[in-house]
């Protein structure tokens, strides 16, 4: 242990938090967790709830695995990680069913599928197993937030252009596109609600991001 204590938000720690939002974004750069990004983003509300659930699961699983990292027998480490993640996911599922029943009906199987979200196992294996609890928490939060941002953007675009409304948790549906527009002949694009448009929206985000940050372009 070094005698001087590292500040909680040192530049090194802050980097853990911010790089996954942009240059190391799990969805657009590492292309992980795509499946759930397609499935839950037809509306804004489930996208937000899904993001919060992943933040919760990833922060706590990173923390728990990091705390246990020196005790976990390496031969069963994947099983231990899965057990921790699965328990947290069940917890989230139970809490949603109790306190956000409508949303839990919409998310249905996808909450359960957080277990298989590659981002979570990826971070546990790559980061939490080899780092101290606090950096692991930051790393978990950063990666989950990076995932969440993309989900919210995609959910926003799809719901807005697909239905003309936006649904927010706790508030409900808000009509964004005014009736006047419809009288002028504007029509909602029903295709936006279907899964392929999520892929195309993510594709456009990736395109924009890479054209602005040339380092991300993979030349191989």
């Amino acid at each position, binding site marked *: 242990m070094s005698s001087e204590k590292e500040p909680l938000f040192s530049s090194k720690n802050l980097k853990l938090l911010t790089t996954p939002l942009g240059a190391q974004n799990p969805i657009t750069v590492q292309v992980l967790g795509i499946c759930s990004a397609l499935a839950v983003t*037809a509306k804004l509300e489930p996208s937000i709830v899904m993001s919060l659930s992943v933040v919760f699961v990833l922060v706590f699983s990173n923390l728990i695995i990091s705390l246990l990292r020196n*005790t*976990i*027998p*390496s*031969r*069963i480490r994947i*099983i*231990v990680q899965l*057990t*921790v993640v699965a*328990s947290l996911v*069940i*917890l989230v599922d*139970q*809490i949603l*069913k*109790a*306190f956000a*029943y409508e949303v839990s*009906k919409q998310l*249905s199987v996808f909450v359960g599928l957080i277990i298989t979200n590659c981002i979570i196992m990826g971070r546990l294996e790559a980061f939490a197993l080899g780092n101290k609890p606090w950096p692991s928490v930051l790393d978990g939060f950063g990666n989950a937030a990076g995932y969440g941002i993309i989900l919210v953007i995609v959910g926003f675009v799809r719901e807005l252009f697909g239905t003309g409304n936006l649904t927010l948790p706790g508030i409900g549906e808000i009509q964004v596109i005014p009736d006047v527009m419809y009288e002028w002949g504007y029509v909602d694009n*029903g295709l936006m*609600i*279907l899964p392929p448009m999520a892929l195309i929206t993510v594709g456009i985000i990736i395109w924009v991001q890479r054209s602005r940050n040339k380092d991300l372009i993979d030349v191989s």
Partner: protein
Amino acid sequence: MDRQGNKYTFLYASVMVIVVATVLAFISEALTPIQKKNEEEAKMIDILRSVNIESTTADVAEKYNKYIGDKVFIVNYEGERQETDAQTAFNIDLSKEVRKPLSDRQYPVYECHLDEGEIKYILPVRGKGLWGPIWGYIALNEDKNTIYGTTFDHKGETPGLGAEIANQAFQQQFVGKSIFNEGGELVSIDVVKGGAPDDAPHGVDAISGGTITSQGVENMLMDYFSGYEAFLKK
């Protein structure tokens, strides 16, 4: 102890499983009452929707008590009213009943008194869609023949196709249709592929692209109306 040895590994796994199981069991026990209340409220919202009363989780209990309250009872296949209290009738699990033969099932009836003093009979129905169960509530007028309102829901029909049965547009079609023909015979409601004529007394339009789900709705209605037939003819 050797951290990579078999003994340690077994011990670690066992302790972990016990800890995790205890925590999850405890949480599940603690949250079950709240979850059950949510499910009941969701059911009440569905029931009230079939008589065109919109409610939210905040006011559903009040509205349900006002319009239906304890006027819930069970009839059997012969149409005889059974001796049970309203709560038992409300709690009848259709997912179990639907597996029994028609004559053994218990049939709950919700009697709803609207503001104008009209009486509606709400019958729960349940059947099979393409991917899983579909269910709904059918509100009949006092003549026990004309449909006053319906609501349908599903577990996981295809969004945009079969899932459209949960939409107002599909459900509104049933309003005013009758389930008995002029001779008093049960004909139920046909869900017609390609569209039913506007003035068809016993037919509604199926959903394009949702043929199997539409067929499921038709079968479900026929199945349950046959079960309720004796009660409806009384």
